[in-house]
């Protein structure tokens, strides 16, 4: 139990002056972003805004051309791959599920960075797996094979795997996209539980700005690879931001549970800043 609940103060994740590019085309061109310890930071923005790229950069999946990513001041590029995987977990969008393995077997893979080459499963591993499965609420799926699960159930299993990794920082790439309403709320609930009950720093890419407003302590809004706004949801989510970043007319209501957004119509006007790359284009709400 001592190792299980090892003393942990939440870690700070910082990306400093990051330049991230695909095929020599910079997507993110020198941005700095900080995820505060123990808080939930949501990255939002329209399609192609670079939010997923930024997350990949923070996860060290995409090495930055310039700039550094730091966990508590330590550069991730200097850490060994397993050492990093013990501190920083990523729920990727591009996972492939081998159909033939059970949920439990998948979750045990989350313990990979904690096990040496010839080490077997320890009591600690078992405790973390049980805790992760409970947290992700997929105990009833434990012995089911991945191939027999619905998309939403599978997502819960993947979340359990990342939780079993037991990291200080958790990066989630659009965890709610493509899920039905029930499972979207399940995922939101998991994030809320993590925020209130454990010292994990969470960065989550969300497509739904309303969801972001609900669970995030801080919101970072991106457009065309630039951070346009960041701060508390109350301060960031304004009708003006929705018009500029998302190109929609919307009404924003201040409520006790944070801002409530009512989208009205897409904007077609030419009054938009000239750097809007698709003037008049209607953004579909999928990636």
């Amino acid at each position, binding site marked *: 139990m001592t190792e299980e609940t090892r003393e942990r103060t939440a870690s700070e994740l910082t990306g400093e002056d990051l330049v991230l590019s695909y095929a020599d085309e910079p997507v993110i061109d020198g941005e700095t972003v900080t995820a505060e310890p123990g808080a939930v930071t949501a990255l939002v923005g329209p399609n192609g805004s670079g939010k997923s790229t930024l997350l990949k950069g923070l*996860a060290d*999946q995409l*090495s930055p051309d310039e700039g550094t990513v730091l966990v508590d001041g330590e550069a991730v590029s200097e850490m*060994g*791959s*397993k*050492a*990093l*995987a*013990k501190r*920083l*977990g*990523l729920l*990727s969008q*591009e*996972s*492939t*599920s*081998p*159909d*033939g*393995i*059970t949920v*439990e*077997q*998948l979750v*045990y*893979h*989350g313990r*990979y*960075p904690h096990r040496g*080459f*010839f080490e*077997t*499963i320890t009591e600690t591993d*078992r*405790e973390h*797996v*049980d805790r992760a*499965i*409970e947290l992700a*609420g*997929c*105990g*009833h799926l*434990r*012995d089911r094979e991945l*191939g027999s699960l619905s998309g939403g159930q599978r997502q819960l299993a993947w979340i359990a795997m990342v939780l079993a*990794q037991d990291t200080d920082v958790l990066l989630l790439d659009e965890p709610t996209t493509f899920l039905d309403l029930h499972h979207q709320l399940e995922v939101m609930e998991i994030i809320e539980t993590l925020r209130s009950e454990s010292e994990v720093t969470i960065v989550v890419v969300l497509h739904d700005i309303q969801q972001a407003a609900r669970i995030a302590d801080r919101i970072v809004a991106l457009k065309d690879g630039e951070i346009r706004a960041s701060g508390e949801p109350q301060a960031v989510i304004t009708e003006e931001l929705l018009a500029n970043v998302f190109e929609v007319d919307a009404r924003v209501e201040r409520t006790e549970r944070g801002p409530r957004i009512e989208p009205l119509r897409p904007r077609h006007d030419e009054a938009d800043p000239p750097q809007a790359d698709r003037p008049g284009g209607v953004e579909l709400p999928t990636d």
Partner: protein
Amino acid sequence: MSNESSTGGQTVSSGPRSRFGWLFDPALLSVAGASVVVVFVGGMVQISHGSYSMSYVEAWYAMFNREVLFDPAAWQSFLFGTEMPEVSTESLVIWNIRLPRVIVAVFVGMNLAVSGAIFQAVTRNELASPFILGVSSGAGLAILLTLVVLSGVSLGLPLLVPALSLSAGGVLTAALTVAAVVGIPASWLYAVRSATRSAVVGAAGLTAAAVLGFGLLAVVGTGPLAFASISVVVSVSALLPLLAAVGGITAFLIVYAIAWKNGTSPVRLVLAGVIVSTIFTSLQTSLFFFADNVGVVQSAVAWTNGSLTGADWEQVRIVLPWSILAMGLAMAGARQLNVLLLGEQTARSLGVSVERVRFGLASVAVLAAAASIAVAGIVSFVGLIVPHLVRSLVGTDYKKLIVGCLFVGPALMVVADVGARLGMGLLTGSGVQVPVGIVTGLIGGPYFLYLMRRQENIGEI
């Protein structure tokens, strides 16, 4: 829901509970048991038939002759090539002539099956076989070159460690393979460490490292003056097994070099494999036109289709160490293979160095394939079909899959070799032996078709 999950800690139903607990899976145990029976029965049939005729009972007694079974001198002769002690003719026929062929078949089947299983995970391609990354075409070209172009050439070779009482070929195989096994990963680490270093340079370095081993040999060989006192003359054909293996490994490295561009991807690897295979196969086929006589062509066909004719303890000695090494590494890498199957990004986020692991495991698979090529030529289909068969029986967990392949591969190979050696005799009464690769194709093809028709998700890895 929460009730169930809170009791989850007590369930002992699945999941890896202890180091070897997963081995006691009923499906895996029955697969292994059935395979052992098949190997045993196939082996008994194989050793009971031949030009020196004996009954099954006689063969049984000769096989389990205490004089051989518990004689250290006999085992020394088998494993290290020393003088064979006096035994009965039956035991001599069985132990010296017929049994080694069965043993070689066992190892070849093992190597090919495990190699195929690894390649199916590494390339994430259900059609992958040990030969998907150009290994067979490289080996085939080397075989044809050796038989057609170099058949008359003799090399003076330095016998570096005569005291080891191994044959010249054995020593050289060992030296070269050690160089490849140690040198390639070392240079790879060097190339991968620095992200900015041009990948082509790194991969070219690898190819060079592999070719260097052989190049050095040639240089030393052509300069017999310096080593005249301790060199023996070996005809190039005697080095055929070695050259075939080196050809296969070289082709694999070329494929990797072509596929590398800031890292590889399964698709790039497979495409590069197809390209290199096409070119090498064309060159190989064109060489047939330069063959002097039918004997050379038959020999080439036997090698490029895989044959165990004439397999001897010498072949056992060649294949044994590499099989043990490759199988051990494959078992150790099973967990990495499992994580690799979760997708590249997830594997990386779990702390797997994807490129390094991919190359390392592919090298293990190529080593296994090369070992089997060196003793049996290019046996097709075993490496493709056995992993599928095992997967349909024990599931997708690579730890079980590899162990299953260790048993089912030999079973298929031994049975196929019985067909290759005795089948024509049964059908036509002639004593002609066909290459075993033809039989594996004949058994494997229809079985694969059956598997495909029966299961909808045949391709799922």
